[in-house]
């Protein structure tokens, strides 16, 4: 069957009325879930899994997938509007997105986020259709050494996110790694730093951590401001991105999509890494890097596109190899098994309608999401005009409930409060929370892949340089590190030279 045939098969499946209906239900639920901080697509999908027992496999997968990529759209909304990232992938969007909202530019931020997600999602689907099998083969070549090198590159990119003090940001990254040490050690199976608290066996959840460090801390900081007006959003200018916004965002969207797609394929890699690599890249390439962190639209366009492209790409390992790339894909794997479909390299061949039907329905889903989200922008922006005194208790309430329902665990709430207070103090003392979160997310894979690599190589570090992919990433990391440090060295040298000339 050639490509055009496949596409037609897919369209025929996707446009069947019940598939359209379930696609819509999926993306609607996904958006709602995404908007609610805390509870992520995994939770919603697992609750709705039994509903899928009675329907056909294609319809089931269409709906569940819709929840997943729909949640990506919704997550950016809360990040931008109220500064609470509901999950790790939304953290980066929040950095500049929320700043834009505070400056009265919530509309353009939400708009660019929606459009960027749509474009990236579409590009991702095209990539999925055309490149799935060869890319899957490349993804398999990523073993522990490659992942380690990739994580190192991620950590180096972190340095680009530093706004004020480089030293402080680096230290926060170190703290993030330490926070990531809490929980079960994959390699020994023993709990670490859990102080015998059973709820900590699985480690500290990213959602309570992010919601506390950013959301709760911001509420605490705002509450102690004397002038209430300072937190009220300035006059909202326009609802949609301007021409200039589009010009500034075009390339970031393109680059973000590519980055997101490539990283999303790697099992365990994914949206978070992609979003902040995109941020780092955009900041580096921008003509006005100093605007990043204060409302640069490129800082929203790039990462948003990256995390949506990554969400689409995450389907590739599952559909082509039967390997779930993340917890969400794990649920889809279970759904496939229940419906009697064996995921694996032969799945596309044995079930062409499932694959092409799902892929084409993703187009439909993305269009539905764009249509859903754009009109809502007006509604969201109006919400921001509400008095902060009324708004923040509600935000706090939703954050608390959202964090609780993830695991039904009180511990998550305590953690959120703890990190909220910590974040509040940190920001007072001028320590940035973003590097902490991002390093935290990388830590598990960083540590596991380092130790796995050393076991495989028998203790020799050469494994990292003898394998081409790993070596390339390490080389790029080195280059990035040097280029990050060079300007400050040059500055010091010219300062020294100037003082030398003066004294001569």
């Amino acid at each position: 069957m050639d490509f055009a045939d496949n596409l037609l098969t897919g369209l025929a499946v996707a446009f069947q009325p019940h598939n359209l209906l379930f696609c819509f239900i999926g993306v609607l639920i996904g958006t709602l879930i995404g908007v609610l901080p805390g509870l992520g697509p995994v939770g919603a999908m697992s609750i709705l899994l039994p509903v899928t027992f009675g329907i056909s496999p294609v319809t089931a997968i269409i709906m569940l997938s819709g929840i997943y990529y729909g949640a990506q759209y919704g997550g950016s909304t809360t990040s931008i509007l109220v500064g609470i990232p509901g999950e790790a992938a939304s953290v980066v969007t929040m950095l500049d997105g929320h700043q834009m909202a505070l400056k009265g530019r919530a509309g353009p931020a939400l708009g660019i986020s929606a459009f960027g997600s749509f474009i990236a999602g579409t590009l991702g689907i095209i990539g999925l259709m055309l490149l799935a099998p060869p890319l899957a083969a490349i993804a398999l070549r990523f073993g522990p050494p490659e992942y380690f090198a990739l994580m190192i590159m991620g950590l180096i990119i972190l340095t680009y996110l530093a706004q004020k003090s480089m030293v402080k940001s680096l230290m926060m990254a170190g703290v993030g790694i330490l926070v990531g040490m809490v929980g079960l050690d994959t390699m020994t199976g023993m709990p670490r730093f859990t102080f015998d608290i059973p709820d900590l066996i699985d480690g500290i959840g990213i959602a309570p951590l992010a919601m506390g460090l950013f959301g709760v801390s911001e509420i605490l900081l705002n509450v102690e401001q004397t002038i209430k007006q300072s937190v009220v959003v300035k006059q909202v200018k326009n609802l949609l991105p301007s021409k200039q916004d589009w010009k500034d965002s075009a390339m970031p969207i393109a680059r973000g999509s590519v980055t997101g797609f490539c990283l999303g394929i790697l099992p365990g890699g994914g949206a978070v890494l992609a979003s902040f690599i995109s941020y780092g890249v955009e900041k580096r390439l921008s003509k006005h890097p100093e605007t990043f962190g204060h409302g640069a639209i490129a800082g929203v366009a790039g990462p948003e596109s990256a995390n949506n492209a990554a969400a689409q790409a995450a389907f590739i390992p599952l559909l082509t190899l039967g390997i779930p790339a993340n917890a969400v894909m794990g649920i889809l794997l279970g759904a496939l098994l229940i419906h009697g479909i064996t995921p694996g390299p032969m799945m596309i061949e044995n079930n062409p309608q499932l694959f092409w039907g799902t892929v084409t329905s993703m187009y439909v889903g993305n269009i539905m999401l764009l249509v859903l989200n754009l009109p809502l922008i007006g509604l969201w922006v109006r919400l921001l005009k509400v008095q902060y005194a009324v708004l923040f208790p509600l935000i706090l309430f939703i954050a608390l409930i959202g964090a609780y329902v993830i695991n039904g665990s009180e511990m998550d709430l305590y953690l959120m409060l703890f990190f909220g207070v910590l974040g509040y103090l940190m920001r007072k003392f001028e320590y940035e929370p973003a590097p902490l979160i991002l390093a935290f997310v990388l830590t598990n894979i960083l540590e596991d892949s380092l130790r796995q690599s050393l076991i495989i190589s028998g203790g020799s570090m050469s494994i990292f340089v003898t394998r081409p992919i790993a070596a390339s990433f390490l080389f790029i990391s080195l280059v990035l590190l040097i280029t990050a440090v060079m300007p400050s060295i040059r500055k010091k040298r010219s300062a020294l030279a100037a003082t030398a000339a003066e004294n001569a």
Partner: protein
Amino acid sequence: MKIKSALRATGVAGAVLTSLILPAAAQAQYPDKPITLYVAFAAGATTDVTARALAQGAEKILGVPITVENKGGGGATVANGLLASKKPDGYSLLVTSTGSITVRPLLMKLAYTPKDFRVLMQYTFYIGGLVVPADSPWKTVDDFVAHAKKNPGMTYASSGPNTQQQIGVESFARCKGLTFKHVPTKGGSAANTALMGKHVDFIAGSGSHIPLVQQGTFRELVTFHVDARDPKRPDIPVMKDIGCPPTNPPNGMIVIAPAGLPDPIAAKLTAAFKQVSDTPEFKKLLDKYNLDYAYEDGKSVQDKFPAEIEWYKKYFTDAGMTLR
């Protein structure tokens, strides 16, 4: 006077009779409110799906709603701890793994011990195996052993350290006098991925490998944890066939309640679940996950615990690990 004492006597008699009847009535009325069936694993996982099937079937038999709640985490230890804290009134039940009850407490401090539970029934267990890529040069287990003897330190991935499947590989190694390098990963899928990418030489299959063996991506060289060959795959030997003692007691999926559950309630629950698990639909569901239906009554499972714990104690001590 007579009326007063008569009334008093009636009152006392009434009280005595009621106190005798009520508990029996209460038991006879079990269940009279919804039951919560916790699942010790994530939604969508094998255990979860099978547990939900059990719940749906048992609901109709028992006549009350059974709510399924996932409480995954820590390899089932979090859920076990939760159940240990519940009242043994038959309204809190858990679907979990035998390994989390017999093996884990030996290694770490947990919120429970095996004595805190009453096993109602077991419906299946995980079967591990030694799995290599389909295009590897070893077609039989003998080829593999020969190669391993000449090249000590072959690497293998598993779904985690001290899982039943990984212990299976180590038992195999001990029997044949081989040394391997164990590369733990974060679960069966991660191990499968590592093998597909040929980053390790083989894996300790933990069940999720079976579809991949069926599709021809992997090849299973020997199956652990069972005494007889799988009739569906008769060319794969078991430990007995290659001259090795049986591997470790496997990881079974069981339904448990807090210890102290009254016998009548336990019997009712076991009967209900057994009725569901005996149905062809349930067996078909297990089949989809390539699991065999292996019903075992709760008492018989629990009677085997001490021996199982001893086996693992010995294994860990021999491996030089410190026990709790």
